[in-house]
């Protein structure tokens, strides 16, 4: 399954936000992907996420495949929607 999200926080998916994203993604067994346009990265790879250079306002597609994919998508999109608990 997949879901579109928009990066809301001012600093974008910077190091701290990317670390939180990877920590969250890693709690699930599902394979997690993050797509920006035609680039797809492993959602459990901080380097991959940083390489997406997702600043504020970037539209990303989160994907998850595996038995806990629904929970993974819910948790990750909530994290992104919350702006990683940072200023938006």
């Amino acid at each position, binding site marked *: 399954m997949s879901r579109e999200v928009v990066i809301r926080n001012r600093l974008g998916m910077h190091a*701290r936000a990317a670390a939180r994203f990877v920590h969250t993604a890693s709690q699930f067994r599902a394979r997690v992907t993050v797509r920006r346009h035609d680039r797809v990265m492993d959602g459990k790879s*901080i380097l991959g996420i940083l*390489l997406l*250079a997702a*600043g504020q306002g970037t539209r990303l597609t989160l994907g998850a495949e595996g038995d806990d994919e629904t929970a993974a998508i819910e948790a990750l999109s909530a994290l992104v929607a*919350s702006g990683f608990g940072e*200023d938006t």
Partner: protein
Amino acid sequence: MQLTGIGVSPGIAVGPALIVEREDVPVVRLRLGPDAVPAEVDRFLRAVAASREQLEGIKERLARDAGSPHGYIFDAHLLMLEDPLFKDRALAVLREEHVNAEWAVRKVAEELHDRFARLADDYFRERSSDLDDVLGRVLLNLRGAGDAPSLRRLPGSFVLVAAGLAPSDAAELDWERVLAVATDEGSATYHTSILARSFGVPAVVGLREATRRIAPGSLVVVDGTRGQVVTEPSAPMLASFRAAQERDRVEEERLQSIQALASVTRDDARVVLLANVEFPDDAETARLHGAEGIGLFRSEYLLGRTREWPTEERQLEVYLQLLRDVTPHPVTVRTWDVGLEDLAPGGPTCANPALGERALRLLPRAPDAFRRQLRALLRAAAQGPLRILFPFLTGPSDLRAALDLLAEARESLEAQGLDHAARVEVGVNVEVPSAALTADLLAGEVDFFSIGTNDLVQYVLAADRGDPRVSAHYQPLHPAVLRLLRSVVAAGQRAGVTVSVCGEMAADVLPALVLVGLGVRELSMNPAAIPRVKAAVRAARASELQELAEACLDLPTAQEIESMLRRALADVLAPLAAF
């Protein structure tokens, strides 16, 4: 020779230069026989494991020493170390190409660098320096060099000159022996700068060519206050630096010497100076700086790193300790001022924490946490002058809810027959404009106001002081702020309620004097600021400050107010100019 950079940590230091070269580990490239590959894979994994252990150690040390929120950098570094794009890829190169581990790491590093270098965004492109830091460590560990021992155990006291200090290097530094820091790269928000400030070590960054132009062992002067670095200073130059250093020291001593003196203006107005305290250990520092009590204890410390609500007994222990440490002075404890995200790590968050579910707004979600705290506070108050401060209240209805909760806590203690204070001073943290505007309605219900100017100014002017793009709009001397403060003070005075200010405004001499002029007689600040504010109070006249404050209220802009104050208070400020 003189170099100019950005002074990021004040003070002057003189000493011999130690040049830090983050040594580029020579990489030997070897082709391995297929049977040697498993041992090489093993060697690589051991180096990764050793790196992980070191990074975890650094992260812990950093959290302990600097109490800093910068540990996340190492979370990111730890994730990079285990990242499939690095680790799995390096293993694949090892196995498929039969090369030695150093070569594999270097090859993957180059691939990743290429990808980062193509990014248009500066911030993301520069993350390759974090990657360098992590992979450099793996290479060092492969070589069996372990942690860079020279930085952890310096062979003497030095002025550290470096191209740049990676966050992990800076965190590991033997700071006791670092006289000053000078770096080619960097900015004020550079991690090394933040650490230097927290260790009180003078630092100048952004010098561009310090490592190239300063010879190892040469005598270097670093003036972190003015952003200057001078090598092999001439005798007169050195003398002038020594004189400046001496002036700073004398000033510091003078400030220390007034610790025991009363905080009164020249015309005998008493201004009580209290300390804002984050950790219980700060209470001792507060006393040493002459604080007459704790004006703000941010109790969130008790949540610890695990962010768990502490038990009632654990809280009681800490509150009693604070009372003992500052006896006979009062201790003001602010009740939980946490956000939604603090309730359950990884749980829900607020889009805008400053306007969201915070402090007592969380009561429905965590009623026991608030009840336990109020019970612990009431029990501690039986043993000494403890004051309870409710943060983030927006007006009378919030206050009623807080007071009801307090009454409920008292009843539950009575029912259990536990010793507690029959009467305790209760205050409102006036930080939301609505609370300030209803101060007259609140005054009858409480014993004191503590105006939290950091938040109040931010809410009144709609400017986030943490955001460098709008921080110029954050103006404590804005007429709107001063007018609002005046009305809160007047409401407090009419009801006979003590009005205290806790916030940066109280710690800065100029605004602090304006507050005294507006009628505030209690200022709470970080302990280090107390001697200086006291010196200013002792040099000023309350009657004059009152006139000045009134004159400020008629001026249209913060700039005009500030320049008028600087002119009028030149005599008071001049002796403090060294700071």
